């Protein structure tokens, strides 16, 4: 189709032929015969200019940096690969989990966090650590919104077990919004303003709470779990942070 014998030398030329000429598809002989004629034709020249403008449009698209959640997930997966004795992550299993997920940021990390082998360091967020969990009054009015199901039951001593589920959710529950979350975190001295990787209402030892998973800072594959009391937390209340935990790869 690019041979000289089949290349029409007089206008009008098809858009496809002009685009081929523009892209250097034609063989050198056909190109040499056609190009001067095309350049002498104002309409054909305007088509070449349109193709140039199209390429300029495409070049103007900005770079898209990899989102932090994806970078973290890949770092975690590679860290897992780098551990020779570690069990191999089943991609099928990871895919099944991802198919169930609700939001990307959370889902993306669910498999990685579950697979990486996590070590938990629980840092009590305030005085309430001294109280037995049952001492907190149950607040019936605090039922999380946006979910017909009861919130996930979580034990304060086993926060890590809830991570895969929370990573799949972007449900602020009684906190309503990211702004409210940022305020509550600020109260606990946590300055993260990033969107949480996952967030969900939970029932922490029977008490209504919201669990958020935040990017863990500079260390690849590290995440931070924060549990908040939605009833009292806010920028001025350090007690609103019930638990603050770091998950890191066991290396």
């Amino acid at each position, binding site marked *: 189709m690019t041979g000289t014998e089949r290349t029409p030398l007089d206008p*009008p*030329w*098809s*858009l*496809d032929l*002009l*685009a*081929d000429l*523009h*892209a*250097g*598809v034609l063989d050198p002989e056909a190109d040499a015969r056609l190009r001067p004629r095309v350049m002498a034709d104002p*309409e054909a020249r*305007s*088509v070449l*200019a*349109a*193709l140039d*403008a*199209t*390429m300029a*449009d*495409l*070049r*103007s*698209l*900005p*770079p*898209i*940096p*990899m*989102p*932090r*959640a*994806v*970078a973290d*997930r*890949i*770092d975690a*997966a*590679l*860290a897992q*690969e*780098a551990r020779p004795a570690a069990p191999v992550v089943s*991609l099928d299993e990871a*895919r099944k989990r*991802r198919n169930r997920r609700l939001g*990307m*940021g959370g*889902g*993306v990390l669910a498999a990685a966090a579950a697979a990486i082998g996590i070590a938990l360091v629980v840092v009590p967020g305030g005085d309430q650590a001294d109280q037995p969990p049952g001492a907190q009054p149950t607040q019936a009015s605090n039922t999380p919104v946006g979910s017909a199901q009861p919130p996930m039951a979580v034990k304060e001593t086993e926060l890590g077990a809830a991570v895969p589920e929370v990573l799949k959710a972007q449900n602020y529950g009684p906190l309503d919004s990211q702004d409210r979350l940022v305020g509550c975190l600020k109260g606990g001295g946590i300055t993260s303003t*990033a*969107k949480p990787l996952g967030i969900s209402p939970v029932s922490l030892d029977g008490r209504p709470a919201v669990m958020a998973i935040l990017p863990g800072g500079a260390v*690849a594959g590290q995440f931070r779990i924060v549990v908040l009391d939605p009833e009292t937390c806010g920028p001025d209340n350090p007690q609103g942070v019930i638990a603050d935990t770091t998950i890191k790869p066991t290396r």
Partner: protein
Amino acid sequence: MTAAASSDADLISAHAAGDPYAFSELVKRHRDRMWAVALRTLRDPEEAADALQEAFISAFRAASSFRAESQVTTWLHRIVVNACLDRMRRRQTRPTVPLPEAGPGEPVAPRDAMSERETRLIIQDALAELPEEQRAPIVLVDVEGYSVAETAKLLGIAEGTVKSRCARGRAKLAKVLGHLRNRSADANVPADGVNVQQQRQWEDR
């Protein structure tokens, strides 16, 4: 810490020699560009993330036997592009989802950047309308700036095929983007219905 100044080939050698950080460092160098390619080709952030993870893990496992050190970058990019193409082929019939205009944490564009943002969206929408066999070479050559020769290697097709798929894709895009609006209908240029429709969507925003 792995030396920042190492070449890609040094990193592959270090990886083969057991340095647990070398491969991650290699990935860090290339991940943004590969993410852009994956996202623009697949148009689905979850699929793009899955494709990249699969590709990087398979590269990680194969890297210790990799010998053609001068071509580490091409080799790694090819694994990523193939992972994306595999996924595109597998999901042929599935509809695509809109490409997010901003990643998480990216600042909202200021008011004076609005029209630039809208133009960008229109270009992205136009790209999405291309058949996948044209979109991949256009993304690689025209958006990401790979050479025709590199693109041919990445896609595993002849350079002439890259050029002619780019030519077809650009011709379609020139119409959709309105650059060919005034051209007469005798040269395969349909009425600019698509463009009018896009323009309306734009104005309605």
